[in-house]
């Protein structure tokens, strides 16, 4: 079932939680709403669910599920599944009763027989691999297990759309990874339309078909994870999607200078701020004709596929972060206190908030 939002806005008292938003989510799509806290992503999700109502003035917005206008349809009749941030399992009911709840509260004529409910609940519990815990109470389960119960409970009523609020936020890294993969698989198997909220860019990029980046109640960009990472539309998106190094300085005749740092750039004269991702910084023992950026290593973290190196210098307001291949790391025999030269492979600039990114590549 596709979801279409037209002109959805929301006020809380005097603050504008959402500016008028238009959003189309295709049938079978898995969409992540990504943004920092206070960006309005949870409010948007709750409005889709019907747990909050959108503003009626100045213009009433519209919410469509497929062809069905659900703007004024009550939550209980929207046929959604909602997974809450802290699961919100019914604490006094067993796992079985939690999952069965949505089926047992159906009006008599639609309600399946007891035997059928039982079969359906056990099918769902099997799917989330919890059939052996059917008689436990929620408090007796681990966080990951509770999350799976809450998913099974939401899916029991066969919703048109599945909405998830920070579904993995409260879990530790390993469990989160497993559950993400599992949700992705489930989504592909059952092919429902899902929208989830997260503040974790890695989670959004890994899980979603498309990501909606939000800040201050606005949609900044809607794109596939690759497109989003490759060509962020503005500085906010660029900075939100990963670690960023800043280089501020004055450009004069194609050379940007900042203290004793120099970098050849093909830009008009004036003040400039360039942005670099950690993997776009190459380290070497010598400066080059194009760049002279002396730095000192202050910290090294060799854990993972790449070595993370923290760099400081007089001309830097904030330390830089560079990721280096293990081979390069060993070749340069990097250690703390060592003085090296940074060479940008590529940099980005966002001259003003709205305009498109400018990139320049260097053969480093």
């Amino acid at each position, binding site marked *: 079932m596709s979801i279409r939002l037209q002109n959805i806005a929301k006020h809380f008292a005097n603050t504008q939680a959402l500016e008028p938003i238009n959003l189309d989510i295709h049938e079978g799509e898995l969409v992540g709403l990504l943004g920092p806290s206070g960006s309005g992503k949870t409010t948007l999700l709750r409005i889709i*669910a019907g*747990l909050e109502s959108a503003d009626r003035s100045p213009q009433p917005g519209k919410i469509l599920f497929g062809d069905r206008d659900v703007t004024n349809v009550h*939550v*209980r*009749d929207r046929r*959604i*599944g*909602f997974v*809450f941030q*802290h699961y*919100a*399992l*019914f*604490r*006094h*009911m067993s796992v079985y009763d939690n999952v069965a*709840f*949505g089926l047992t*509260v*159906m009006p008599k004529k639609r309600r399946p027989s007891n035997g059928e409910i039982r079969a359906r609940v056990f099918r769902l519990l099997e799917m989330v691999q919890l059939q052996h815990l059917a008689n436990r*109470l929620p*408090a*007796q389960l681990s966080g990951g297990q509770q999350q799976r119960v809450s998913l099974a*409970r*939401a899916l*029991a*009523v066969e919703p048109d759309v599945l909405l998830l609020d920070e579904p993995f936020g409260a879990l530790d890294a390993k469990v989160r990874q497993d559950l993400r993969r599992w949700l992705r698989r489930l989504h592909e198997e059952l092919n429902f339309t899902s929208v989830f909220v997260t503040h974790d860019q890695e989670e959004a990029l890994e899980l979603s078909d498309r990501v909606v980046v939000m800040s201050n109640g606005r949609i900044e960009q809607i794109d596939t994870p690759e497109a989003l990472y490759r060509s962020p539309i503005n500085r906010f998106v660029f900075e939100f999607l990963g670690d960023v190094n800043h280089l501020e300085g004055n450009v004069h005749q194609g050379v940007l200078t900042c203290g004793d740092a120099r970098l050849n750039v093909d830009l008009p004269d004036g003040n400039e701020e360039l942005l670099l991702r950690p993997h776009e910084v190459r380290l070497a023992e010598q400066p080059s004709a194009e760049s002279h950026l002396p730095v000192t290593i202050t910290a090294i973290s060799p854990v993972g596929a790449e070595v993370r190196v923290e760099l400081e210098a007089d001309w830097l307001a904030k330390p830089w972060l560079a990721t280096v291949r293990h081979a390069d790391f060993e070749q340069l025999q990097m250690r703390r206190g060592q003085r090296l030269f940074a060479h940008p492979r590529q940099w980005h600039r966002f001259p003003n908030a709205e305009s498109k990114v400018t990139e320049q590549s260097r053969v480093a």
Partner: protein
Amino acid sequence: MRRIGDAPAVRRLLIGAALLLSALFLLLPLVAIFAQAFSQGVMVFWANVSNTFTLHAIGLTLVIALLTIPVCLVFGVALAWLVTRFSFPGRRILQTLIDIPFAVSPVVAGLIYLLLYGRNGWIGSWLDTHDIQLMFAWPGILMVTIFVTCPFVARELIPLMQAQGSREEEAAVTLGAGGWTTFRRVTLPNIRWALLYGIILTNARAVGEFGAVSVVAGAIRGKTNTLPLHLEQLYQDYNAVGAFASAALLALIALLTLAAKAGLEWRAARQEAFL
């Protein structure tokens, strides 16, 4: 390592003092009530308890308690629901208003009701022209009893419902449950112990209330005498055994209430330990 104040002498002194004071101020009076009530034998005690006026007082007290509890129950749940599940202007003021019956002396409460609903009162004079008498009759007793006891249930529920939040109810609604189903199957089971506890407190207070009731009841023996009022009258009449017989009944109700409360707390603690 020893904690501060953990010297054996200090410990014995403190425990001893606590036990001595409890015995002097709590246990001894309780024993004295029963000793006095039975001082002339079980037969005299029984004669006093089965006296028509005493029986009437017992009956009236129980009827008032039975009528008060459902009113306070509905009021308390509705109020707690309103205050914890909705935000509206005046919510904080409402939360403070709940405490008025606790803050005001019961005698003052009785007087206010007398002023408003008595024959010469603002509302009372209008009611009088329609031949409705509230004061110096059982409806008056019921009204002040409700006034005095109405905060108990709400006071028990509000902190609990605030702590639990409304997520489970939202979850129930997203699963298609209606308002009443949500309340019955999700809200009520979550608050049942606090609710029972509130009812026990309400009952204890409704049975034992003296101040407010004494102002509006008029103490007509066999008509508007509740057990505490009856007790006082007997005592004024120098019928010590009769007074203590009634006192023993009230004390018994209090002990049963305490036992029920302890039982509930024990159960709640066990349930938590089990989770």
